[in-house]
């Protein structure tokens, strides 16, 4: 199946979210969030810190259990899955890119081992092939192949983040969760990473849910946008539409504060 076929082969949503709510006692984490994500689609979730976007992402990725709502992946009820099935999903079809590469990498394991782990987790047992694939992926994320035996601790922040992306994408997942993937990086490094991400997402036909407070990131990557405030989705729509013609006062504020910078 080519990438385009993967993308257009179905008009069924890949991920269907309905009424997702998570509370921390009296405080609302996120409330009544619903959306559909279609294959090949990139959804950006924006809002300032405390808006509930990270809570929402961790509920979607199965790291936290929501209090209410439904999440269906290809029609399967994610919340009803046993941990075995959920973990299997998260090392095959899904991937998760952490803001801090240290959370997503094994810092004591070489770059090649980091990329190879997911392959080995799903049964790859040929050293040469694993290494070949790791080398290929290092190339795709613009890390020199002669660094394959170096540990990530010897890498710059931008390289670590690119390595984390390679580690996640090596098994060709279909759905990638990204939590502020460009946070903590210098502006020039950010630009390069965004460029890389955009290419990979397009080439692989990935579906992505990306959480960020940085509107420049979503403008470049996301097809659609959800704006969150105090746990609620206050506005959603096509990225350009939301950013160029914000309807909600909060979105207007967000957009204008970016413009002021």
């Amino acid at each position, binding site marked *: 199946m080519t990438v385009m076929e993967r993308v257009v082969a179905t008009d069924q949503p890949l991920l269907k979210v309905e009424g997702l709510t998570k509370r*921390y*006692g*009296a*405080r609302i984490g996120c409330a009544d969030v619903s959306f559909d994500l279609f294959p090949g689609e990139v959804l950006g979730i924006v809002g300032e810190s405390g808006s509930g976007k990270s809570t929402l992402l961790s509920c979607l990725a199965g790291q936290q259990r929501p209090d209410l709502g439904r999440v269906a992946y290809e029609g399967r009820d994610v919340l009803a899955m046993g941990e075995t099935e959920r973990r299997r999903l998260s090392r095959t079809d899904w991937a998760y890119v952490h803001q801090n590469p240290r959370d997503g990498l094994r810092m004591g394991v070489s770059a090649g081992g980091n990329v190879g782990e997911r392959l080995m987790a799903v049964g790859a047992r040929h050293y040469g092939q694993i290494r070949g694939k790791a080398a290929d992926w290092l190339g795709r994320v613009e890390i020199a192949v002669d660094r394959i035996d170096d540990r990530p601790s010897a890498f710059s922040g931008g390289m670590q983040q690119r390595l984390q992306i390679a580690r996640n994408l090596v098994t060709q997942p279909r759905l990638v969760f990204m939590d502020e993937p460009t946070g903590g990086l210098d502006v020039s490094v950010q630009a390069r990473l965004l460029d890389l991400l955009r290419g990979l997402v397009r080439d692989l036909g990935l579906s992505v849910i990306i959480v960020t407070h940085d509107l420049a990131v979503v403008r470049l990557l996301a097809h659609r946008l959800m704006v969150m405030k105090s746990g609620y989705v206050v506005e959603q729509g096509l990225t350009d539409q939301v950013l160029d013609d914000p309807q909600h006062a909060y979105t207007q504020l967000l957009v204008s504060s970016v413009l002021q910078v």
Partner: protein
Amino acid sequence: MYVAVKGGERAIDNAHAWLAEERRGDPSVPELSVAQIREQMALAVNRVMAEGSLYDPDLAALAIKQARGDLIEAVFLIRAYRTTLPRFAASSAVETAAMAVDRRISATFKDLPGGQVLGPTFDYTHRLLDFALLAEGLPAPAPGTPAKPQPVPHVTGFLNRDGLIEDAPHSEAVPPDLTREPMELPADRALRLQAITRGDEGFILSLAYSTQRGYGRTHAFVGELRIGQVAVEVDIPELGFAVEIGEVELTECETVNQFKGSRTEPPQFTRGYGLVFGQSERKAIAMSLVDRALRWKELGEDFTGAPAQDEEFVLMHADNIQATGFLEHIKLPHYVDFQAELELVRKLRAEALALQEAAE
């Protein structure tokens, strides 16, 4: 020509005979009696009973004698002996509120029902070597006051009356038994307390100290520390009531700790608990601090990565018999594994050197 080393058996027997001789020391010096150890090394005896999980001062004193004063070795002797003892019954929970106290102090209230009872403590002694003890002789008798039997209620009870401290409701749940079931993690509080009370005093002390220095801080006050005798009762099903089978000396410590309150609870103090066989004051206080630090999850606090908050770290490393065994076993022969490593290193070196030569 080579003659393999033989005679392990004789070497062991001879080593044991030598050990027995060393234990006795200079035979011109009178031998220690078990009763002397029990009476005059009482705090060592208490520690051996606490960490050996067996309340028997005579056996503990015997173990100390046999172990040449090595208390961990003595604990080990007691534990191994304990394994062979059949279990006839389980006692009812002891009633520490009814303790006949020798010592009872509170750091949170200047005066309180039951009073502050200093008891036999090192606390305010000046740590000056007392050369008078070089000579034998009886100390001057301590001035005695006739005991006025009066109830000594728990300090935390006063706080609880006003809702100022978390409630600790009575539970009929049968606690798991560390000595009869494998440790399952995560452990509940009853299991944690069991593991800590028999854990190594030095380890628990250091963990507690680390919480005071900021590694899992809990802001503890000693609400109450009490030492004394409590009755041990056993339910006899045939009789339909409990029968007192004896008394044990216990040290109990309850700490009162700061708490900010949570989504379900208004701000109130929380508790740490320590209960140890014998007069084992340092251990009881340390235990209550570590207990409190381990309760972060149920109290909705943050895990800061402090060792004393880490249940698996604390419980898996508190037992000095396990620790000393595994530590010291590395002196046993490891020829086979070492040989395997030797071959590997030789092979890796040969390959590396060959590569180097090829490069030159």
